[in-house]
């Protein structure tokens, strides 16, 4: 009996000795093992292909990739196109439209999102119903949103026609069929789709604000406007940052929305850098130029994001 217990005690001790080290080994390595495949995939499919695109932009690739280096020729072409306004080059149109669409889309999504979130945060009745209604557009794909808005804004069958039938015959709204104005319609559709989502982000931020602070502000006699302007909005500043990142990349990558709202780019007036990149790379046999435009898009995003991320992280670590 005693021998048995001794042996048991010995194994138990051994197990205790082995246990923590094995567990420790697992604890060290398991996260790395689990993350390794996705890390590898990201490394190859994101950064690897970024580099590959960068390389292609210095080649003379047309329909298929080649390794024949031509220096900055493709960038020079894009640079020349940037100033070719009559007739407008596709690249010039794409840049102008990106500025208009991106600027309006980001500004109004942030503005409307914040406004809706603040209004919903007033402890109103029926919030549970209102919130999903505002969020719902996000469940649609851009191509559905785009098609619906195209039909809705079409003067012959949509809004204008309906108002004419109801008697308001002087009403006139034909932006969606005017090549000069159609990019604004794309922005309207995009804002409708995304501002509910931004609202949800802001709402989460607002709920995170400590009620004590608000009460203190109230006691100090701050008006509602002052409370939001001076206290709440500065506190939820990180939400602006997240929303900006989400919106900026959605604006730059939007492709299906512009094609579906405008009806396949009539007059070449609805070009965006993304549509430019796709058509030059895959249908126009100018892969090198398409790659150069992709690199410029990447650098543009980096130019906005890197300083912002840098300043934000520095502030946090301080």
């Amino acid at each position, binding site marked *: 009996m005693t021998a048995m217990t001794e042996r048991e005690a010995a194994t138990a001790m051994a197990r205790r000795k082995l246990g923590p080290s094995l567990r420790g080994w697992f604890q060290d390595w398991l996260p790395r093992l689990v993350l390794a495949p996705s890390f590898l995939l990201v490394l190859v499919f994101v950064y690897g292909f970024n580099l590959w695109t960068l390389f292609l932009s210095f080649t003379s690739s047309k329909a298929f990739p080649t390794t024949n280096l031509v220096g900055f020729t493709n960038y020079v072409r894009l640079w020349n196109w940037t100033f070719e306004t009559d007739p407008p080059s596709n690249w010039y149109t794409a840049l102008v439209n990106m500025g208009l669409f991106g600027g309006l889309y980001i500004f109004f999504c942030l503005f409307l999102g914040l406004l809706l979130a603040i209004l919903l945060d007033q402890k109103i009745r029926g919030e549970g119903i209102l919130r999903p209604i505002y969020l719902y557009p996000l469940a649609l794909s851009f191509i559905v949103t785009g098609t619906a808005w195209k039909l809705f804004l079409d003067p012959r069958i949509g809004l204008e026609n309906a108002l004419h039938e109801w008697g308001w015959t002087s009403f006139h709204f*034909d932006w969606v069929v005017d*090549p000069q104005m159609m990019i604004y319609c794309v922005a309207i559709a995009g804002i409708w789709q995304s501002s509910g989502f931004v609202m949800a982000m802001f709402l989460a931020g607002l709920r995170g604000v400590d009620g004590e602070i608000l009460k203190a502000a109230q006691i100090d006699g701050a008006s509602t406007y002052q409370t939001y302007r001076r206290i709440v909005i500065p506190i939820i500043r990180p939400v602006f940052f997240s929303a900006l990142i989400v919106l900026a990349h959605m604006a730059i990558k939007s492709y299906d929305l512009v094609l579906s709202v405008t009806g*396949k780019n009539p007059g070449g007036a609805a070009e965006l850098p993304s549509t430019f990149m796709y058509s030059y790379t895959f249908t126009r046999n*100018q892969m090198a130029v398409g790659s150069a435009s992709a690199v410029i898009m990447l650098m543009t995003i980096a130019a906005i994001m890197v300083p912002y991320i840098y300043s934000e992280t520095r502030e946090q670590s301080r």
Partner: protein
Amino acid sequence: MKFRAFLISTALTAVTISYGTLGHAADIKEVQMLHWWTSGGEAAALDVIKQAVAKQGYAWKDVPVAGGGGGAAMTTLKANVAAGNPPTASQILGYYALEYAEQGSLADISSLADKDGWDKVVPVALQKFAKTNGKWGAVPINIHSVNWIWLNKAVMEKIGGTEPKNFDEFVALLDKAKKGGVIPLALGGQPWQEATMFDSIVASTGGTEFYKKAFVDLDEGALKSDTMKKAFDNLAKLRDYVDPNYTGRDWNLATAMVIKGDALVQVMGDWAKGEFAAAHKEAGKDYLCYRFPGTDGSVFYNSDMFAFFKVPADRQAAQLALAQVTMNPDVQSAFNVIKGSVPARTDVSDAAFDICGKKGIADVKTANAKGTFFGSLAQNYAQPPAIATAYYDVVTKFMHGGIKTSDIAVTELVKAINAAK
């Protein structure tokens, strides 16, 4: 090259996941058919072939990849072929068929072609896409042509119009419609539609020989010529007859305007007939079809083809059976009556077709004999897609005011085409 192989294998993985079953059940008595004919009318037309294949004792394995233009289907096909696992046959468009043929992926079905004498009955211009180095690797199932105008008969009678025989008469007819208070020209202001209409305008303005020189041979002198400038000016003339809301409109909505009598005429390929048929309208009674004024006797076509890939020996019988069925005159007739197009062989009886179909069949026959049968540039049958896209660009910018004069337009056209070569 490595990158391409890599890309293709990536695409392949995705495709194997979604179409995992394709090709694994290699069976002698089975025809696998990759296609993008998923809409009602198209599927009904394909059913004709399905039934005929079944009669030969072969099971039909449908591999539909939706998406109107066939872009998704072409990607799927590329992945399957690259993996050495091609379908028995695939729906395909001209330049893609050539690509596969040059790459050596297509089967040689010349024995059947010689036996059935396809060389004599398929229009010569179409054989360029079906045949490479004298070997048949694909078969055409239909011929669409773009130089048609479609008119609402009631409106035509109301304004007292007659068939226009040249461009000036066409403009006069549009004027009449304008005075009569209907929209003269139903147009969808999308690049491909404008370019499709411009194909006809170029042929009407400069004649078929000029069309060939400019768009088939890409002769720079012709592209820059005064005739081409005049064609652009003629396009500008037609712009005066569209309604203000035409920008971005889909082609079938424009057809609907003619069907409803809101507009007099649409310039569109004969796939527009499908819309009339779907609205239960009858050719000659409810609507009229004429060749685009000034292009009668010429046909500017595009065509749907079936490409046959190199497959293992035990699947070749099925392949030949499908090829034979596809080229069978009765099948071609039945298929094209439903599809709204014209048979791809010139010896098919026109008995089953309506008057527009009958005219289409007769036109293909004469155009083929006279050498006035050419591919449509806008529909990717005169030049590869890259050049067609460059062409769209110039036409649509001119149409919507981005390019202001026809002088600039021809310069831009030459520039764009050279860049796309």
